């Protein structure tokens, strides 16, 4: 496994050296793709090392609701080698809160606002937490990508 990580990306070793136990799990899916499950409380530090020190490009973040709770995958591109490093965090289902990365790079601004709108994840210290895609035409506190919304749709009794 270690050899495979080495082949996959030296950036992962660098992160392991830096953060050690804060990385819960490393999954190398191929030579070019790796997923690191990390401690959500340390996301700012991770992003800072990846963006400022290792100079990776932030592609986008994907949020979803799974059995584990709310998951966010931050996709970073290592353009020099064509690899994609995915930082995965799992947030609590009842209280999904994570630190905003917009203070580190502007590219996170819109996607964090969007993730808040579709799934209701809170981004702490976001400098501009306005609505992005549903300004003035969507109910407060209704998050369309949540599973509870799907269930409400499937069962007309719950329709509001």
């Amino acid at each position: 496994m270690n050899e495979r990580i080495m082949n996959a990306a030296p950036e992962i070793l660098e992160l392991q050296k830096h953060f050690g136990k804060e990385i819960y799990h490393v999954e190398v899916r191929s030579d070019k793709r790796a997923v690191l499950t990390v401690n959500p409380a340390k996301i700012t530090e991770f992003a800072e090392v990846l963006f400022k020190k290792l100079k990776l490009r932030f592609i986008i973040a994907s949020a979803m609701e799974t059995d584990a709770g709310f998951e966010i995958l931050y996709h970073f591109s290592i353009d020099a080698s064509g690899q994609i490093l995915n930082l995965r965090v799992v947030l609590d289902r009842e209280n999904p809160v994570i630190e905003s990365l917009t203070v580190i790079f502007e590219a996170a601004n819109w996607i964090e606002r969007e993730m808040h709108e579709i799934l209701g994840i809170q981004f702490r210290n976001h400098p501009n937490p306005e609505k992005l895609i549903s300004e003035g035409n969507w109910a407060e506190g209704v998050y369309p990508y949540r599973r509870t919304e799907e269930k409400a749709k499937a069962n007309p009794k719950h329709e509001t």
Partner: protein
Amino acid sequence: MSKIIPIGPYHPLQEEPELFKLYCEGEIVKDIKWETGYNHRGIEKLSESKTFDQVFFLVERVCGICSTSHPFAFANCMEEIAGIEITNRTKYIRSVIGELERIHSHLLWLGLAGHFLGYNTVFMWVWKYREPVLDLFEMITGNRNSYAMFKIGGVRRDIPNDKIPAIQEVLRGLKKKLDMLVGAVMDDPVIHARTKGVGVLTREDVIDYAAVGPTARASGVDIDVRRDDPYAAYPLVSWKVITAKEGDVFAKVEVRLLEMYESVSIIEQCLEGLKKEKEGDIEIPVDEIPAGMGTGRAEAPRGEVFHFVMTDGSNFPVRHKIRAPSYVNIATFKKSCIGQTISDATISLAAVDPCYCCTERMAYAYDAATGKKLLNGSELVRLSQAKTDEIRKKMI
């Protein structure tokens, strides 16, 4: 007097309805606010209710101009999940389609940019030269746009070898027209005056906003997914990534113009490659998509398209995230437009190529204090064109 100039929600600068509010003091743009969601189609959510084969037709409709870039990225993504290596013939066909699309998209943009600057002849000529490319698409795929060519493990139609000479013929004609266009743009002092030093995006801004495609390459950020994370036939042919340093509108024009030459060269090499491969060898049978996740990328005319798919072994994606290049490129307006005059804002906004919308509606500028109508969208274009006229007259 402080005033707000809205561009949109419907405006020919934009592919989708969206609203830019330019906060102006006098002639100078002081701040920009962006609103969208007027036409949020919920494609990511819709994708979860489609089978993988159907998703291709869905994502093809994310963008009307670069309609093959999303299926391209999605195919790359699904093939990564399923661990499929496609045949060489498929690779060549995919690259031919991808590059033809880049040519027609860049030509379309060039025409629009000409229009905004008051060069309506450029607009009409360029769109005329774009037609043969669309005719080629009709010949190869059956459609001028939304080609429905891609599927997991292959393409739906072959490019028979007897059609290759007709494609080469069109490319030869196109190269002559490109020479003429490049000459006309590079030698015109008015275009230089209108676009040099205008809408400058620095290298630092590009990195901070994670901009992609020609927008990034014109600011000296040397990224191109076709080279960095090779897919399809791009590693099999020789070509180079075009970059410029200045980051202004002119640099973006230059990058796009020169990229079209590279695209022509890539297609020519791919066609030679096609001749060596067996006809009809265009697909790998796919039985099952295993549970897992994958990321796929493709270099669209506007930059990197990114798809993330999570599967659970069923026929449908569990989660499908799509990041179009304009999502990161549009945000850079904040850097490129603030401090510019209103007459330069139009071309600065258009320079990142946010496509255009088929439906033009009226947009007015309101005096922030009195609510009085000041300018509308077409007057903004007229203002931009008038500035070019002024410069031209001074030069004569």
